[in-house]
């Protein structure tokens, strides 16, 4: 396959472009997606290519936007619903959590909801407490939903292809701060399977399981720690629902130490679930309790100085790795 460098956001656009070209049932609906090309330029060029029938600008009505997606998906189309900031899920959660997620179950399997809901998640751009959250724990806790958290341009495209072809509602959590990050992306359509973690760096002393943009930070920390003689394995689950517990546990059995990192608040976050799964599957192999690195239990501050102090970063990840390796 021909491979070139693309930004994270362009990889998303390319995936949609190719999916829409291949399947007339795929369409996009949301605020500012068509004429404007999306507030993060995720949809640039798609209106010119596919027209207003399949690129639909809407009024500011999140519930209606997601509800439209649920109805269209139930009738067999493959809507890609964009609600801009992940925080706005709170405005339309009924359509996602009570309708989309439960429709197949409550209709006795008669109806499927192959809808993709794209959201821009994550902090670090001084966007304030209502435009910066990472709410994957809410969603992963809801039976019926799938949740993808790509950390690279390659995975954005591959996960998006899988998401659109999946017969269930899938939330694609794009990370705002990664939108401009470049990576190698194959030209052709390809899938990154759900529930299959990527081991991005092999190591022997500690396993760092990182979500979304924290994968980039964990990889940087691993580089620093290598110079100190600490060998770090970096595991990116890529989807948190389904979660690839097997790969994480297998890594834990080899390194005997696990640090979980996400930018969502630590309390009740995916780190707790992963720690519990590791404990279940590999307790006898662990030399130390699983450590979690996440945000403090406070909303994301708007002040750049406070936000910077609030967010987990490579320094804190490295510190956690040093701490856990000292214990044994």
């Amino acid at each position, binding site marked *: 396959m021909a491979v070139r460098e693309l930004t994270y956001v362009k990889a998303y656009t390319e995936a949609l472009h190719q999916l829409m070209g291949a399947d007339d049932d795929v369409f996009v609906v949301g605020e500012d997606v068509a004429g404007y090309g999306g507030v993060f330029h995720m949809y640039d060029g798609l209106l010119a290519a596919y027209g207003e029938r399949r690129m639909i600008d809407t*009024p500011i009505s999140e519930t209606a936007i997601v509800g439209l997606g649920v109805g269209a998906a139930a009738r067999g189309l493959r809507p890609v619903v964009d609600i801009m900031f992940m925080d706005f899920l709170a405005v339309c959660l009924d359509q996602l959590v009570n309708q989309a997620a439960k429709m197949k179950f409550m209709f006795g399997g008669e109806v499927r909801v192959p809808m993709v809901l794209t959201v821009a998640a994550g902090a670090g751009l001084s966007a304030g407490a209502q435009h910066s959250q990472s709410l994957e724990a809410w969603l992963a806790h809801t039976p019926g939903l799938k949740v993808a958290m790509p950390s690279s341009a390659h995975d954005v495209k591959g996960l998006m292809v899988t998401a659109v072809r999946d017969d269930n509602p899938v939330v694609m959590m794009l990370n705002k701060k990664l939108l401009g990050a470049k990576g190698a992306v194959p030209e052709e359509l390809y899938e990154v399977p759900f529930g299959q973690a990527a081991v991005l760096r092999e190591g022997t002393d500690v396993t760092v399981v990182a979500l979304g943009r924290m994968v980039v930070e964990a990889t940087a920390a691993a580089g620093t720690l290598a110079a100190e003689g600490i060998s770090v394995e970096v595991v990116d689950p890529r989807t948190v629902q389904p979660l690839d517990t097997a790969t994480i546990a297998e890594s834990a059995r080899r390194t005997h130490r696990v640090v979980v990192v996400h930018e969502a608040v630590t309390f009740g976050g995916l780190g707790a679930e992963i720690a519990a799964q590791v404990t279940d599957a590999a307790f006898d192999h662990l030399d130390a309790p699983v450590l979690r690195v996440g945000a403090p*239990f406070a909303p994301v501050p708007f002040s750049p*100085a*406070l936000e910077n102090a609030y967010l987990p970063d490579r320094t804190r990840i490295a510190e956690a790795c040093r701490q856990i390796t000292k214990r044994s």
Partner: protein
Amino acid sequence: MTALEHATEVVDPVPGTGAPHLPEQPDSGPEFVQLLTPEGERVEHPDYAIDVTDEELRSLYRDLALVRRWDVEATALQRQGELGIWASLLGQEAAQVGAGRALAPDDMAFPTYREHGVAWTRGVDPLHVMSLFRGNDMGGWDPVATGVNLYTVVIGAQTLHATGYAMGLQRDGADAAALAFLGDGATSQGEVNEALIWAASLSAPVVFFCQNNQYAISVPIERQSRVPLYQRASGFGFPGVRVDGNDVLAVLAVTRAALARAREGSGPTFIEAFTYRMGAHTTSDDPTRYRMASELEEWKLRDPIARLKAHLARAGIADAAFFDAVDAEGDELAVRIRTGTLEMTDPAGTEIFDHVYAEQTPDLERQRAEFVAYHASFEGEK
């Protein structure tokens, strides 16, 4: 180049990337309340007379000019990296100053994130607003003391707060009303429609002041509503009025009447202030991607400040010395805003933990202590 020209300089988008869009102009019939034409001519309206002194007219002009000067300075400061973001009110000065000046001291305003002109008329210090947009201040002004609620960011949520506040006023038997600000975009929100239903059902003393600035970020009003927005009110069961939002006198007259009606127990009113967002949605946005320069040029002919200035000069209410003095005052204000903004220092990191709950929790105390110890561990490294 004037400050307005400088702040609104745009080029047309690449041909074919966006459809030309010219908002339909309302007729100057009785359905459209106007007391001052774009040329600055005073006209009468059968339902909305206004009695203003020359002194009041001059002070309205001063408010409009100073609020614009503040806005232009804030946009410049954001472009220079000194503010996180700025939501410009450029072009909407008359709607905001007119509505703000209509409030009585005990009334309560519920702004969006763009109502700097309303905050100004209620005596909120511009530097306090700047500190929010700079991310220097975790909180805001005292909403009770100023009669201005804090800015609400998620679209339309404040209309429910205003309606609830009005229910409280009703139960207290207070001689006051709530004024809920919203934009055209917010009228598509479920929450806003629930607020309208509740306000009608309870006959609550609340006025919905909708600045129709023609765009929900990039989506034009035709895409949002098939009827003029003020007509929607009748479906909810209360009056709707469309006012020239660039005419400060008409806005003042219409809002005063609606607030008086609310205070006397006759229920809500929906005001559609027909105006135009001359700047971007916020500094994160690029309006040249979705609208034509010619459209902006057309709206500059209806500029809210130019028309009042023309009226004041033509009627002999203000002379060149007055306008020069206001300009000089604007420059002083701009210096105060710029200097004050640049002098703001970052808040202490521990403020993260200070306002999560009403009381400090043991868990947050622990996290705070860990935070302090963690950051102390780097001391001497830099």
